[in-house]
């Protein structure tokens, strides 16, 4: 239980809100990357 509680807290050396915000942003980026990769032509950005 103690380990689990430890795991849910931010790493040392970062503010709590900064840590959780970065975590959310990374999670969102991963989910969006999944959506964008799920294309027949994953290289659609070659249109640029």
């Amino acid at each position, binding site marked *: 239980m103690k380990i689990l509680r430890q795991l849910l807290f931010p790493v040392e050396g970062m503010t709590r809100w900064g840590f959780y915000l970065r975590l959310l942003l*990374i999670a969102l980026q991963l989910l969006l990357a999944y*959506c964008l990769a*799920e*294309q027949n032509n994953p290289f659609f950005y070659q249109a640029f």
Partner: protein
Amino acid sequence: MQAIRRLLPVAHIVLLLLIAMIAINQVMLTVAHAYPDWLPYHMEGAGFTEDIAQRVAAAEYRYPSDAAHGQYLCALLGLSSFREASDLQLMTRLTDDKCRLLGLCGAGPSLEDIADQSASLRDSTLRPDLVFIGINEFHQAKPTAEVAAANARERVTFGHALIHGDVRGIFKPLRDNIWFYQRRQDVSLESESVLLNAKVKIVHAMGARMENPTTDPWREMIHLEAPERATAATFHDQLVSYGNRKLFDPATYDLPIARQQLGTLTQLIGELQARGATVVVMLMPEYSELRQRVPPIALERLRASLRQLGNNTPAVVNFRDALSDDDFSDISHVNVSGRADFSRLMAAKIVGFLPHHPPLMATSSH
């Protein structure tokens, strides 16, 4: 122990990322309940109808100058089996740019979906020289509410799967509750269109001309991101689902609803012919087991219905066994190699059916 201690920071971040993803997913599901239309549905009936209407409107604006240069207009009407099998760029190249290909295929289980989703073509000023209607003979069977109920009964519940250790049954309902899985293609298509529109605006602001690829009438039809080859379990599930739709039961093709669906098809053909188009009905390639299990009466009824058009009976191109099973992603859709193979066959047919007179809209554009 030392190794586990070293992995602890990684486990820490992975666990927190997982929690963040679950939280984001829950927020997206809640938002989707409150505002279901905030992200447009591209991969459903209404989404396809809108997409087709935009293609028709853009072609009305763009095609007259192509007609003046002698290019024919060829419209492709159908459902997902035709949409997935078409590579418009390849077909255009193989037909030596003799015609403009307008991809107007949507999605759905029955013939009336083709007529409904392509209504904008009939309401437009476009006069296609050639129209290919790509169907499967079983599209005359329209699923009823009982069929949906039968398919729902087949579904394995999460609890049942958990008790029986059915891994596939456990993960499927979990996957279906992930918003980013359900809407991945809409997110992808919407992001692509926002980025491409921004690119066009920047190019225009710099004083250059550029065709917007997201509104170009001759653009590729929307394709599914299906795997090259579905698993044997998926093939089995699809055949069971088609069985529940009674597509393998000869009596289905004697029902009044089947006659009504065929009536919709002949009416659509008649309306297109009245605009001067040569209409060709094309029977789409089918996975061998599906082809063998659909009773012959389905094709007989379809052909008999088309013969009722008398002198205007359209040509029927039978591609049912034109592709091998390796060309299929699942029982009703082709994969990438199947698309290329079918597009080559299709290009040859387009050339064969092109009229010998100038394009219908060549005269009206002068």
